[in-house]
């Protein structure tokens, strides 16, 4: 019941946003697959762990229970340097107060939204034995559910735990940056719903875009840079403790 209410509220928010910002609606011009360089910016300073992004994603993409295309992790560093990471139910219902470390003992805490990194050197792409996982012409890593036979090799290959086997479709599944939306000029659902602007998405090839400006001016990090996967999800002020 609680989940249904949360999903309904996310749906209402999406509807209101569309109503109030008609400019964000799909451009009527035909989408060109060439010339895009999409990038996703996560600002860990702005995320408040409300979980609206997780709920919006669930609603938009019909993500099955207990699996996530995006989730939010909470990093709590105690004064004695002890690190506690949690993400109860992927932060679908946000976070409750952490009981393991009382508030006065917390040195710092922050939230880290996670999703598929759409790596340039995506480990999941070459391992797919039938080519069902591929780079789209505009650089997004996608999986064709009508061709994937559900071996799970790509799930094992992803070092970020971003993929899962969809129990309903029996194929590999993951974040697509809401490909069905971005090719219509819309933003991914999680970006559109984020109340603090912690998630931003855009075309880095367009030098006037907000994302291109952030890429130029901010100190950014990527998850597990040492792997050489070259993620296209960039984090502002990424803490080295985050994997």
């Amino acid at each position, binding site marked *: 019941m609680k989940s249904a209410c949360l999903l309904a509220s996310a749906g209402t928010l999406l509807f209101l946003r569309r109503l109030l910002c008609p400019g964000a609606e799909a451009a009527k011009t035909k989408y060109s697959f060439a010339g895009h360089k999409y990038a996703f910016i996560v600002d860990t300073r702005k995320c408040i762990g409300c979980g609206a992004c997780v709920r919006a994603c669930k609603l938009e993409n019909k993500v099955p229970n207990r699996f996530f295309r995006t*989730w939010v992790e909470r990093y709590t560093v105690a004064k004695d340097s002890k690190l506690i990471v949690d993400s109860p139910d992927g932060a679908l219902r946000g976070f409750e107060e952490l009981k393991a470390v009382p508030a006065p003992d917390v040195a710092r805490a922050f939230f880290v939204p996670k999703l598929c990194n759409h790596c340039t050197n995506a480990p999941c792409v070459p391992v797919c034995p*039938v080519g069902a996982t591929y780079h789209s012409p505009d650089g997004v890593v996608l999986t064709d559910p009508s061709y994937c036979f559900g071996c799970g*090799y790509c799930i094992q290959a992803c070092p970020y735990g971003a993929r899962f086997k969809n129990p309903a479709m029996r194929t590999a599944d993951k974040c697509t940056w809401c490909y069905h939306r971005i090719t219509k000029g819309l933003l991914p659902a999680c970006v559109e719903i984020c109340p603090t602007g912690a998630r931003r998405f855009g075309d880095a090839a367009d030098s006037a875009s907000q994302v291109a400006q952030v890429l130029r001016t901010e100190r950014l990090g990527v998850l597990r840079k040492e792997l050489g996967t070259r993620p296209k999800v960039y984090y502002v002020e990424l803490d080295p403790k985050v994997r």
Partner: protein
Amino acid sequence: MAQILLGFVFPNERVYWQIPIVIYPFLTCIATGTFFLSTLDHLFKKKSLKPVSNFALLASMAFVSFASLPLLVHLGHPERAFNIMFTPSISSAMATFGYIYGFYLGLVLLEVWFVFRPQIVQFVRSSIGLKRAFYTVLALGVKDISESSLRIDHRIVKLLAFLRVPTACVLSGYVGLIFGTLDSVPLWSWRLMPLIFLLSAVACGVALIVVLYFIAAKARRSRMDSRCVRSMSAYLLTFLVLSGVVQLINFLRSYGADPEWQFSFQTLKSHLTFTFVGLQLVAGWVVPFVLLSALLFLKLKDAFRNALAVLSSFLVLIHVFTFLWNLVIGAQLPSRALKGSITFSPELFGKEGILVSAVIVLCPLVLLFVLTKILPPFEKKAEAAA
């Protein structure tokens, strides 16, 4: 399946590869390992292995016939399985499985036919009715078993056995490659993983033949050929030691150097103490090592030596199975976040449960039983009646 989270793990992390993916390399190891014994006889004329060489060939056929079944059971869409042959993505280590497997299966079928052709023709000549019709179909219309014809058969068998050596090596090593190329899982990521699989495959194949030879001898009320058992035990010990050495090298290479590997290994040790330390290392390696050394280097009575060989072989089978269990299941337990792990309790029923897996393992044994009835692999003269 019950999967409990300990510490922090990424919310999508599960044991996605379950018992069928343990069974798949196990069956493949047996299918390619049993080739070793038949090849030593057919290609290198190792006479001491003559009593079991045809039986090993049938075992290879039975096991390779079902080696892909666990994969099909595991797939989300088994009806799309042939996509891997129609549109293989050559960058994937898994993509050429269909071709390698199909080639090996074809070689085994051909070799079985050529090796057993004289027997098939004899059955055609000596039987009547349905039985005759059945063997006539098996003979494929070729009823010439003259000396010159058998000489040609023999040459073809030699050629097939010769081709089967690299193919079996590729097939068993290939399974290791599927795991070894995954850098995201520390316990799998080693390019020499194919070598471990190859050595384990031979040990596993020889061990199974020793055990089945014992059962077959009991069923036929005959004695095991002691020279043959001794010879198989020597091979078993050799490959058990080699496989252990390569696994030790893998352990030493990573231990202390790679924090991810260390985290994974600690998780494996704490979650799978019984299967890893108890079964794989002690019961599956140390005990058979001692027993096989004893039976090879001490003067023992034949019956006692054979009993020790069967016991050791059974333990080696446990070693290989638990090695695969710990490798496949164990490697998926530690989180990629390195801050927690999951536990795994296999379900009894369900597509990837214990029951289905047990049936899959039994299938090749049933087929082998049927095959030995159709194409008797044991020479009556070779064994003294009990």
